[in-house]
């Protein structure tokens, strides 16, 4: 390619959307390394040297090789690899495992390899000299392939080979100046120094533009690689330590902040295989491509639930992948059969793949690589990891979270439904063991919490939906019943101030039934009593009414009798008065009678 094209590629880079919004003041050369360009906001400073420091085995050479290979293959920037420790053949062999064919690239004149070797024993020093020979070699290699990138790995070996350090230091200063003048984007590697020193021989003194520190730390007997941009003159950069891994596809940094959260989402729902659980999850199960956390203490049925999901996926004719970090493949198949989940036929017909390994086998970034590779190769629609708590044994969430986030992101991007089981530390239901999951739970879309409930001399399992993003979900606690017929959820008995499960629930329900019958009988008796009482009272009322009527009649009779006597008397008085010829009077008043 011509120089114009090369410039166009470089020129277009700063306009790329990156997390760090920096003005394109500094031209950057993309490394092509996953994650690193995002951390540095576009790549390494173009036309300037960058120091990559780290202890032995921290991955300096790998980073440098990938920088060159990606430059040569993706950005049309050929590169010179000048090595001071390994030979060209050794290096070619070493990086072949990453899928880089240096020999082929060298044949295509995209990469030039030069092994600089000095044997102290065969060198005698007398009088004045300089390192012009190194310059000439480098210059020749650069001119031969039209290189834009240079790697010096690791130039510090010269300190052991050349006796005169004063000359060496002044020549190194000249070398870095020279690289800048020639506009080479360079990586200079350096061994980590004692204490706080970045490099053993103080290379940081000469390379002042960009310093990247690699680190390999062993914690709990498991090593984790980390990368940090210590310094990047003239640009903003991520300052955190980022875990990285060296896998079959090269160097990969896990930038915590690179999660752009722009993956596609699906409205499709995936049944869990447990009907009543689906009911709790809005009646249809979880979203396709979502992540489900199943957490609980030991023996709560996490693995069984995960296996059920896997089996259900296979029954739908989809591929499923189970990463087991506690049991061997055969053991899983046998054990799951006891709860009515038969995985064997699916393994046999290739829909299901079980991958068992010890979590301590490698650091979790290595596990992540294995997962990536398997998922890429197998293309499942459901992935289960059983359990993540064992896989990421490290105690600090800060360490686990980025790795897990990266895994979840990857699965989401591929629209793979993921089930993670997690062992909660701490006791039974007494303390809130689920709080130990707080770190990773925020990454999950659905969180099912399984709990052991110990009561009445027996232990029972309960389940509830702690959260489920984007769907209506039940707030009920259900009893989680594992039997040889499979998994089922049963309503728990809610009585008084506690939840009853298992035989206590059954006993309580029986008692309840008996009590209900007794109550009913009692009610009927009371009703009968009331009816008979009513009858008695009604009879009384009738008797009293009859009495009143009899009395009334008697009174009427007496009144009518008395008035007829008075009338007769009055008539007689009238007769007598007429006979006497006067006006009849009675009781002091006169009465005219018609």
């Amino acid at each position, binding site marked *: 390619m011509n120089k114009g094209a090369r410039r166009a590629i470089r020129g277009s880079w700063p306009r790329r959307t990156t997390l760090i919004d920096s003005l394109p003041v500094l031209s950057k050369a993309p490394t092509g390394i996953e994650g690193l360009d995002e951390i540095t906001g576009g790549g390494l400073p173009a036309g300037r040297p960058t120091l990559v420091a780290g202890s032995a085995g921290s991955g300096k050479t790998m980073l440098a090789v990938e920088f060159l290979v990606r430059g040569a293959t993706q950005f049309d920037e050929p590169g010179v690899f000048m090595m001071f420790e390994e030979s060209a053949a050794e290096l070619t062999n070493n990086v072949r495992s990453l899928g880089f064919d240096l020999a082929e690239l060298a044949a295509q004149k995209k990469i030039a390899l*030069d092994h*600089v*070797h*000095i044997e102290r024993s*065969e*060198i*005698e*020093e*007398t*009088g*004045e*000299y*300089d*390192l*012009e*020979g*190194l310059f*000439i*070699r480098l*210059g*020749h290699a650069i001119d031969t392939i039209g290189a834009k990138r240079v790697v010096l790995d690791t130039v510090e070996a*010269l300190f052991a*080979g*050349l006796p005169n350090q004063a000359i060496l230091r002044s020549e190194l200063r000249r070398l870095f100046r020279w690289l800048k003048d020639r506009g080479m984007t360079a990586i200079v590697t350096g061994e980590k120094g004692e204490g706080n020193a970045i490099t053993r021989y103080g290379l940081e003194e000469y390379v002042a533009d960009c310093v990247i520190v690699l680190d390999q730390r062993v914690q709990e007997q498991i090593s984790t690689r980390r990368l940090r941009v210590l310094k990047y003159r003239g640009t903003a950069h991520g300052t955190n330590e980022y875990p990285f891994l060296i896998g079959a596809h090269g160097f990969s940094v896990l930038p915590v902040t690179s999660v752009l959260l722009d993956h596609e989402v699906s409205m499709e729902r995936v049944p869990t295989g447990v009907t009543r659980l689906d009911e709790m999850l809005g009646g249809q199960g979880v979203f396709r491509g979502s992540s489900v956390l199943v957490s609980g203490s030991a023996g709560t049925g996490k693995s069984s639930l995960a296996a059920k999901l896997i089996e259900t996926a296979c029954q739908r004719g989809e591929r499923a992948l189970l990463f087991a970090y506690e049991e061997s493949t055969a053991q899983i198949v046998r054990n799951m059969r006891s709860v009515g989940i038969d995985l064997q036929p699916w393994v046999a017909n290739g829909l299901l793949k079980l991958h068992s390994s010890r979590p301590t086998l490698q650091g979790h970034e290595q596990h992540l690589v294995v997962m990536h590779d398997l998922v890429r190769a197998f293309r499942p629609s459901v992935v289960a990891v059983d359990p993540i708590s064992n896989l990421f044994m490290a105690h600090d969430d800060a360490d686990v979270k980025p790795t897990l986030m990266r895994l979840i992101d990857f699965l989401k991007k591929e629209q793979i439904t993921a089930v993670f089981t997690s062992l909660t530390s701490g006791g039974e239901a007494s303390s809130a063991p689920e709080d130990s999951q707080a770190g990773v739970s925020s990454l999950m879309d659905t969180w099912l919490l399984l709990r052991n409930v110990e009561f009445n001399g027996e232990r029972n399992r309960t389940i509830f939906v702690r959260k489920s993003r984007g769907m209506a979900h039940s707030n009920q606690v259900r009893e989680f019943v594992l039997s040889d017929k499979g998994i089922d959820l049963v309503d728990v008995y809610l009585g008084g101030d506690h939840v009853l499960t298992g035989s206590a629930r059954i006993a309580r329900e029986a008692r309840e039934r008996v009590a209900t019958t007794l109550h009913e009988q009692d009610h009927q008796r009371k009703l009968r009593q009331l009816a008979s009482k009513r009858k008695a009272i009604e009879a009384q009322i009738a008797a009293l009414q009859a009495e009143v009527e009899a009395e009334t009649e008697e009174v009427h009779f007496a009144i009518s009798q008395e008035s007829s006597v008075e009338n007769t008397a009055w008539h007689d008085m009238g007769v007598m008065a007429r006979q006497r010829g006067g006006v009849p009077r009675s009781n002091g008043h006169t009465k005219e009678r018609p």
Partner: protein
Amino acid sequence: MSSAAESYVRQDMAPSPLFELRLYVAGQTAKSVTAFANLQRICETHLSGRYCLEVIDLTKTPQLAAGDQILALPTLVRRLPEPIKKIIGDLSNEEKVLVGLDVKPVGLGTS
């Protein structure tokens, strides 16, 4: 002193191997010139007739630098006899050059 005669005698007594020497330089710099002058004098004094010297200017033929693992300039390489020896610098210290080339100095004790 007749150094030529003595060297001839020595060569007679035990036939010394031929010294194949290469001097790598970068152009006509002061160091290059000094180194070449020093080397010629030393060879003529101590290896007269038993050496061949090749001067390689890397500014003209840079591709030759990698072959002999040249880093510092000037570098004198003793390609023969084996093993390969390298002497870096302007060769101003004759004694060191002789030690480096593994050559017994001629006319020891005389000045």
